[in-house]
């Protein structure tokens, strides 16, 4: 019984009388959604069920993998190994790269199992530990043909790696050849990648050569990789044909979905020949590749096989709808190729893609689809249209497309909102002229005429931008424009648009809360029913809260370690992440809101999607040095005079004029500083930036139509800028003699559980950017690369400024 495996109940031979040994692949969170969901729900009985099901469908060994982001493999793996060992007659394959997890599992397993896997990717450190464990506990080992330079592609390289690993495992660690399963790996021949045309041939050749040179070892293959990228129904046939060829070449064991292995007899000779042409790369020419023939063949023969109907394959028309709604780009081009044989390209866009995008919009509107997923759908749309474009007649549609001009208004550099509108409109089949940021009204008028647009969309984040929109309405009117104008932006409200913008322009002026409100407005325009925004019947007066008690100006003035300004450059970028407002990032900037999800569903969204995304982006920003946090800050003597603050810097007097609340309690920033001729107080200021690199990356992502990552990186950048401000404000509090207590965290920052406050210029307590003039004269932030535009906005965008008040009563308020 040398070389055999054993479960608690039976012995299993690696080399079956009728090969291959079938190893079930579904107990793996990275390969099976069902298993992943069960694992994440801590449903270990459900996980076992996945193993039992595979066994009942013919799997003789079950591969068990539990490595998944957010899960603790060290506790999950032994727990499930124990469960599987007690119930499964099939053998067990422990799929892990962590020697500690493997050891803990080996200790618990009552039979003889297989470890999956070793390789030489790290030069042999892991191999060393795992081989020792295999020898000590008596286990077989899977070895992958991977070394420091990656996965072996050619038969010669694969065999050479087998030789190296064989030598190590047998001669150095004393494993028996019978204990080794070599997996020579295979790559997809279904993607059209010209470097992989012979991937199947190389793998089959490697299997033959391994069996010839080392007849005692076993060979193993994850068969389904061969067809990655193709439609499920087609994959099943190719995989089965390829498995048969591999067994002919000497394959002993296959990792498969046991339920999807078709007996060769069930595959027609014609089907089989088309697959064999692809596997052996037969009769290939530039314009007629085996892959094209296979896709054409199966698109004509869809539904012929009974097997397909049984497993619920869907028509291509339905599949493309699902792909768009799910934002799934896997096999997209193949699917479109199939559809092109049925419809002209333009019809695919208008009859299939656009309605699917409408569905996406409706789902978003109902709160059933979150923004990041909408962007993934838009990416699939963009890719589809780009693929179909070459099959369309030139300008077939441009004549009747609705045209929209988009701009961020004068003095405003923020373009994320406008670009989201661009993404949504463009990918709903509209012609968008996106003319950028800081666009003066004159240019908007000229461009609207030049492109003969049907609708204008204006955007802006700042309070000032809302005012600019209001002021430019009469200008558009005088210029004789008649197209509707859509307005969007953070500082706008429905009632502001209705009361302050609508009266200035005769044609409709419409408030749009988000990109989909913009899309809705364009549709209404097309239907002839677009109307100006009106105020709701009774508009309640908005509360503008703030501390209500009288301000006590007998406060003590802290002492500071220096007077004047200082520049700080040696800030560890990683530190910023611990000051991040994660809720604002994830739910706000990124749009991963809980909305209609249950608490459990939302927790799963976070652990499966959001946390790994965050980890990936954080790593990228740090690895690629995309953050250059820099600070210029200072402490200055000052006193207040009515609504102004008079600040001494370099023996010059700088004056900051602050607005005061019109309604009670009539707050003004100046009130938090001692006033009068002889009064002496202290004020802090800072300007911080994370530099320009991240902005360059976001611009690149937008250009490349990577909408999802564009929103994610931009949002992370904005919040990291805020994190840097939070961090530096904390440093300044410590320097002024009131450091935060231990354990202060995100929530305490949100609610300002510290002494004093900081007020950003351009924000609610001081919406006017005029204060930037004296601030820049005093701090000279140009030294850290931050400058002002003609409208007093800071560039780069990911910079922020603030006045720091130490008064114990100073907290956020709004004008």
């Amino acid at each position: 019984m040398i070389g055999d495996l054993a479960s608690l109940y039976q012995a299993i031979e690696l080399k079956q009388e009728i090969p291959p040994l079938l190893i079930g692949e579904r107990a793996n969170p990275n390969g099976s959604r069902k298993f992943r969901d069960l694992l994440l729900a801590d449903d270990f009985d459900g996980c076992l069920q996945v193993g039992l099901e595979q066994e009942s469908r013919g799997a003789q060994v079950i591969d068990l993998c539990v490595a998944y982001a957010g899960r603790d493999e060290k506790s999950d793996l032994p727990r499930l190994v124990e469960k599987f060992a007690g119930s499964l007659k099939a053998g067990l394959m422990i799929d892990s790269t962590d020697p500690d997890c493997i050891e803990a599992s080996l200790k618990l397993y009552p039979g003889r199992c297989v470890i999956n896997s070793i390789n030489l990717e790290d030069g042999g450190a892991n191999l060393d530990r795992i081989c020792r464990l295999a020898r000590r506990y008596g286990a077989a080992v899977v070895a992958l043909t991977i070394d420091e330079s990656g996965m072996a592609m050619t038969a010669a390289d694969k065999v050479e790696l087998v030789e190296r690993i064989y030598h190590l495992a047998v001669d150095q660690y004393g494993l028996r050849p019978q204990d080794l399963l070599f997996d020579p790996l295979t790559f997809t021949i279904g993607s059209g990648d010209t470097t992989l045309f012979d991937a199947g041939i190389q793998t089959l050749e490697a299997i033959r050569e391994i069996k010839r040179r080392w007849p005692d070892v076993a060979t193993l293959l994850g068969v389904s990789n061969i067809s990655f990228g193709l439609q499920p129904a087609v994959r099943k046939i190719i995989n089965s044909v390829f498995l048969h060829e591999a067994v002919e070449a000497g394959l002993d064991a296959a990792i498969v979905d046991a339920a999807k292995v078709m007996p060769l007899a069930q595959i027609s000779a014609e089907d089989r020949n088309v697959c064999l042409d692809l596997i052996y790369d037969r009769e290939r020419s530039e314009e007629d590749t085996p892959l094209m023939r296979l896709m054409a063949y199966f698109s004509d023969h869809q539904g012929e096989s009974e097997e397909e109907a049984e497993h619920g394959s869907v028509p291509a028309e339905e599949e493309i709808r699902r792909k768009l709604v799910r934002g799934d780009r896997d096999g997209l081009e193949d699917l479109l190729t199939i559809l092109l044989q049925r419809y002209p390209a333009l019809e695919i866009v208008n009859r299939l893609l656009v309605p699917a995008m409408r569905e996406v919009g409706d789902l978003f509107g109902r709160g059933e689809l979150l923004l990041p997923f909408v962007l993934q759908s838009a990416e699939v749309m963009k890719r589809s249209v780009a693929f179909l474009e070459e099959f369309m007649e030139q300008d077939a549609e441009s004549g009747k497309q609705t045209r929209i001009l988009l701009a961020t208004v004068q003095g405003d550099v923020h373009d994320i909102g406008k670009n989201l509108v661009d993404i949504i409109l463009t990918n709903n089949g509209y012609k968008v002229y996106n003319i950028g940021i800081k666009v003066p009204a004159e240019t908007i008028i000229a461009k609207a005429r030049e492109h003969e647009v049907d609708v204008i969309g204006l955007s802006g984040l700042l309070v000032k931008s809302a005012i600019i929109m209001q002021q430019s309405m009469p200008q558009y009117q005088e210029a004789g424009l008649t197209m509707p104008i859509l307005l969007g932006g953070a500082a706008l409200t429905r009632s502001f648009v209705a009361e302050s913008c609508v009266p200035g322009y005769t044609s409709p002026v419409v408030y749009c809360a988000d990109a989909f409100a913009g899309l809705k407005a364009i549709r209404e325009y097309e239907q002839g029913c677009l109307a100006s925004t009106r105020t709701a019947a009774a508009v309640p007066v908005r509360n503008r809260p703030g501390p209500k008690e009288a301000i006590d100006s007998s406060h003590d003035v802290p002492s500071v370690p220096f007077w004047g300004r200082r520049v700080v450059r040696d800030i560890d970028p990683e530190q910023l992440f611990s000051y991040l407002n994660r809720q604002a990032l994830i739910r706000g900037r990124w749009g991963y809101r809980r909305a209609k999800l249950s608490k459990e569903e939302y927790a799963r969204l976070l652990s499966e999607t959001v946390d790994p995304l965050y980890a990936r982006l954080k790593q990228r920003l740090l690895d690629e040095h995309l953050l250059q946090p820099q600070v210029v800050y200072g402490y200055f003597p000052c006193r207040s005079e009515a609504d102004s603050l008079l600040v001494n810097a370099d023996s010059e007097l700088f004056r900051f004029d602050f607005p005061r609340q019109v309604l009670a309690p009539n707050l003004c920033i100046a009130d938090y500083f001692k006033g009068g001729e002889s009064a002496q107080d202290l004020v802090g200021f800072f300007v911080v930036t994370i530099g320009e690199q991240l902005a360059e990356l976001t611009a690149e992502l937008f250009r490349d139509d990577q909408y999802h990552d564009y929103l994610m990186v931009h949002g992370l950048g904005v919040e990291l800028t805020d994190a840097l401000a939070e961090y530096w404000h904390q440093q300044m509090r410590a320097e002024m003699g009131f450091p935060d207590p231990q354990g202060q965290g995100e929530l305490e920052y949100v609610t300002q559980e510290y002494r004093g406050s900081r007020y950003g210029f351009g924000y609610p307590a001081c919406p006017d950017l005029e204060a930037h003039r004296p601030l820049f004269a005093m701090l000279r932030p140009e030294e850290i690369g931050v400058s002002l535009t003609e409208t007093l906005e800071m560039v780069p965008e990911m910079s922020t400024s603030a006045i720091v008040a130490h008064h114990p009563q100073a907290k956020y308020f709004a004008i």
Partner: protein
Amino acid sequence: MRYICTCCGYIYDPEKGDPLNEIAAGTPFEDLPDAWVCPLCYAEQDSFDPLD
């Protein structure tokens, strides 16, 4: 149920209400007056997301 402001992270807890805006303790989020906005960042109510 508590609600969180997706703009700044402020948490509206019905058990505490919002004394600054004269919202009595025990007022569910759904019953807040239309004019109520985030007391910290002034975001409107549709910027709030269920917390637990």
